[in-house]
């Protein structure tokens, strides 16, 4: 059993934490009583069908919306400019100014984020065969998404929030995305990947949070869940969210 001091230390060590977190949109419940904590060094899956509250949870962590009740903490603080500096966020919408050139985007990220590594970004962009002088809008949709992923993963952030990074892309692109995430995140940081495509990310997850109707249906260490249930996370997902 943990002593009070140890428990307190663990609590302070959370990179991402939700305490009885709720969010409503008008009368509609998006999240209700969500509680969890993720320490450093995890790659966690935020798993659930569409409309389960995954994006809402991530938007709360980014400070794009505020909780209706409860708390959400990033590196021990409520979302603010300081936590945003430590959070690398990949939204599920195209939000980069597509008139900008790739090199200008790299420069811009470097100016706004002290933990951005422009050399890493250039290397990854060159690996993709994309010309830095190209404007974003001249690239294919898939390459635009990859550029944003590269910019996100080129930050030495403490928390990576990736909202549906493999949704709507072909299997080859999924493989590239997963490889890029694995090859570039900082081992001491925490990665939260929201997805409903469990099979593609199952192998890299060490923690799983299953969201259903805005509530946590199941959470725990990925290996422990597999062992205790005798199922893969994908099978578990299908069981938990069986229609």
């Amino acid at each position: 059993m943990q002593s009070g001091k140890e428990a307190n230390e663990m609590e302070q060590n959370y990179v991402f934490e939700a305490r009885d977190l709720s969010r409503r949109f008008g009368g509609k419940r998006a999240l209700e009583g969500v509680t969890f904590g993720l320490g450093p060094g995890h790659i966690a899956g935020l798993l659930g069908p569409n409309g389960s509250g995954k994006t809402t949870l991530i938007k709360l962590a980014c400070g794009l919306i505020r909780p209706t009740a409860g708390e959400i903490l990033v590196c021990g603080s409520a979302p603010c400019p300081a936590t945003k500096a430590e959070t690398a966020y990949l939204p599920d919408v195209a939000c980069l100014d597509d008139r900008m050139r790739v090199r200008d985007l790299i420069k811009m990220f470097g100016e706004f984020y002290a933990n951005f590594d422009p050399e890493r970004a250039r290397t990854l962009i060159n690996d993709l065969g994309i010309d830095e002088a190209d404007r974003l809008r001249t690239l294919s949709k898939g390459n635009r998404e990859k550029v944003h992923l590269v910019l996100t993963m080129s930050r030495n952030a403490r928390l990576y929030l990736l909202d549906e990074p493999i949704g709507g892309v072909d299997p080859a692109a999924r493989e590239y995305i997963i490889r890029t995430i694995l090859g570039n995140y900082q081992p001491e940081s925490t990665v939260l990947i929201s997805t409903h495509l469990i099979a593609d990310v199952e192998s890299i997850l060490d923690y799983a949070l299953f969201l259903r109707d805005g509530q946590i249906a199941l959470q725990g260490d990925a290996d422990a869940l597999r062992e205790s249930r005798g199922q893969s996370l994908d099978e578990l997902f299908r069981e938990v969210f069986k229609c």
Partner: protein
Amino acid sequence: MLGKLIKYEFRATARYYLPIFAAMILLGLVLLPIAAHFQGLEFFRRLFTGLYTLAIVILAVMTLVVTIRRFYTHLLKDEGYLMFTLPVTAGQNILGKLIPAVVWAVVSIVLCFVTLLPREIAEGGGIHLHLAGPDVAAGAAILLVCSIVTVILLIAGEILFFYLCMAIGQLFNEHKFLAAVVTFLILSVVFNIVGLTGARSAVIFGTGFVRDGGLESLLTWATAHSLSAGLIAGLAMVVISLIICLILFFITRWLLNRKLNLS
């Protein structure tokens, strides 16, 4: 961080303004004076006058469109996901749009005056001041400076009023821009109903004051009462405009902080 936001905003908007500015300078300061100077170039003088007028109309419409569009698309549409996750505050995001917009608007106005000036001088126009003494001159000078500051603040207030309407419009889940337009119309009417007459809300005091002859009486009063009067009157104008700007800014900031509703 605010400096960086402003830099990127200037960079993104310069491509709209600079070509029009260049056209106005070319037409107003080079081509029109040349055409006016030489006999037999009447056709060109008319052509350049027409083009110059067109440039001013384009500039006026473009300033309005760019100001609204940059705030709406960059902060309240998909690009808002980037802008509001940068390590900056909502207030900095608003100022990052507002300051360049005010600068472009002020430069546009100054450029209109500057490019019109040669014709005014040629036609014998201009400003003629007859001041009674050094004290009165100082009072008038202070009033003039305060008036310029007030005009800049009223421009900022006007832009902030647009921002506020868009920040209210984005609260709706659908037809956000339409909601912003309706908000604009309703608020304008409300401000008129409550007696704050003026073309639009942010300039309610300014335009109402001038239209009712307030500025003229103020100037008369200030010149009659010299330096201190000029100072008091000028500062009053600045403070009132500043209060309008601050109210609009803080309400918009609160909405973007607490009620941001990106699609």
